[in-house]
């Protein structure tokens, strides 16, 4: 039953399972500062951002079959937009700035998408997005007011006034909790899009765009929507990243960072909503586990990635569910997403 995992099932039941998984994950994240050291809390907070990064990329690939090689540029656009405006206009409410970063990311995606999606899908769109992300990377690297290659430093964790009370996000683990809350909201939003009627339209486009068009679906329009939603969401994640690290460098716009959500998704499994989450978690564990091995870290991560791909060429979740089915004696059905159509 690939369908029950791909999320667009209309027969209920997935949301209960997904809510349960999310609750467990949240409980772990929330209790982490009490039981783990600062290093692990930092990894967990960063992981939450990467999860949103991966989930939003899969909203394009897993849902409408759009491959972007430049997703990191939207992460960077959000990050720099927030950090710069927070520095220039400290009187503005941080939530407004986070939202603004998201809107900016979505708007840039709309403009780019309106031009790009008209002419190209598949590998062309992928390479085009790569070119555009290099442009963003170069602009960030050479713009004096954005710190050029040194980036923006000393990004402050803001005061969050919520009407009745004001929370100082710079104190203790406040910013960590704030980030977890924001990422949860973003993930819920993405879940809702994927599982709702728009998700069903997306899914139909991913499966057969031409057929979808003959149902009166404006394929290009919906691809544009998925591109804009994914980019806006990622821009908010990027905005959250600046104060977390208190530093932003152009490296977050580099193509090697754009490769991350792709790896998370493919590693975890395209078909499942949770695929990118599993992939990001694997990566975080691998990197944390090998952080002290100079040079060997890359070798170990690389080898494990290779082993996973060779053992489960359909993502971990797909592989595991197939394994489970084989144990239960049912025929396995391979899921085949395509990169270049």
């Amino acid at each position, binding site marked *: 039953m690939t369908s029950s995992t791909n999320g667009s099932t209309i027969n209920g039941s997935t949301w209960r399972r997904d809510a349960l998984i999310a609750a467990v994950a949240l409980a772990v994240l929330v209790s982490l500062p009490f039981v783990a050291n600062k290093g692990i809390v930092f990894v967990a907070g960063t992981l939450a951002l990467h999860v949103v990064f991966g989930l939003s990329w899969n909203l394009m690939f897993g849902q409408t079959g759009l491959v972007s090689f430049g997703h990191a540029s939207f992460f960077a656009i959000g990050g720099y937009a927030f950090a710069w405006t927070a520095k220039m206009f400290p009187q503005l409410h941080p939530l407004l700035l986070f939202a603004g970063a998201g809107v900016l990311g979505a708007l840039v995606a709309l403009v780019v998408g309106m031009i790009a999606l008209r002419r*190209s899908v598949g590998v062309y769109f992928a390479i085009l997005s790569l070119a555009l992300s290099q442009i963003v990377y170069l*602009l960030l690297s050479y713009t004096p007011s954005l710190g050029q290659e040194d980036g923006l430093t000393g990004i402050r964790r803001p005061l969050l006034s919520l009407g009745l009370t004001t929370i100082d996000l710079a104190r203790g683990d406040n910013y960590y909790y704030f980030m977890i809350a924001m990422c949860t909201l973003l993930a819920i939003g993405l879940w809702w899009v994927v599982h709702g009627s728009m998700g069903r339209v997306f899914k139909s486009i991913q499966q057969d765009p031409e057929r979808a068009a003959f149902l009166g679906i404006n394929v290009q329009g919906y691809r544009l929507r998925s591109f804009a939603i994914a980019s806006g969401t990622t821009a908010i994640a990027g905005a959250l990243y600046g104060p977390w690290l208190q530093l932003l460098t152009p490296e977050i716009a580099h*193509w090697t960072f754009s490769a991350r959500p792709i790896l998370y998704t493919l590693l975890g499994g395209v078909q499942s909503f949770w695929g990118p989450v599993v992939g990001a978690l694997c990566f975080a564990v691998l990197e944390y586990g090998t952080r002290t091995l100079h040079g060997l870290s890359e070798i170990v991560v690389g080898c494990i990635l290779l082993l996973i*791909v060779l053992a489960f060429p359909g993502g971990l979740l797909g592989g595991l569910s197939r394994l489970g089915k084989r144990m239960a004696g049912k025929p396995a059905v391979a899921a085949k997403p395509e990169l270049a159509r």
Partner: protein
Amino acid sequence: MLAEFLSPLFNGLFSAMVVFLFATGLTLIFGILRILNFAHGGFFMLGAYLAFTLVRLIGGDMSIASYLLVSIAAGIAVGFCGLVVERLIFRRLQHVDEAYSLIATYALLLISEGAVKAIWGVSFHSATTPSALGSAVVVGDLVMPVFAIFIIALGVLCYAVLEWILQHTAVGKLMKSLASDPWMAGMLGINVPRFYAWIVVIGFFLAGLAGGLLLPNQTLSPNLASVFVVQAFGVLIVGGMGNIRGAFLASILLCVIDSYGSIVFSQVPGIFFYVAMAVMLLARPQGLIAGARL
């Protein structure tokens, strides 16, 4: 006067041939196996480091002959890596969706980066240009380093050789038919897997060779792996989905545009390459040389 116009052209051609030399192996593998090899940069870097070590071992001043021999040696070593990679990884990925081969090549990129860090460390190295190539030719007020002229000549030579092989030899015809229809080639009794293995080895050999040849031009650091890959991807696609002639023309077009663009807009050097690439992809999505594989 003349130099103002010609010097960007010369610089553009130089960087075009650098990108083209880098992209040849990538184009070959993509054209035939349809694998977008992220690791290409990693193995290019490996070739450069190997050549660097060999140069040090030899010591003293390098002649052009030893420079070429060292590059070929680096190419052969990297080509051998290609053989291992093909046996252990690419072969197993043939029946898997191409998206997943992306993870595999990215993993290989990480491994090659890690290997370079573990063996040579993270500090920067730079090699000297062979003294025979160290001077410059001056025409009027146009200054042309001999090394750059040499690289341009090598790029053109490399293109001419590949083009000749593809168009006029039996092997080339075989490659072209395999690129457009592997199934049919299999039907005709061609040992397709062995042929694929050779393509990968040659592709990796070209990566290592390029690493050695371009060594005098590079600062060696583990970042080298990801420097040219994006430009090479651009050349590959703008050229037309992995054909050598397209890649050659696209690298010249994009690099020369970038070279002139950088004069007009010097604040952000290198940006015009990607602007031109985006425009080309939108204006001519089928590529410069459409339809032809290789």
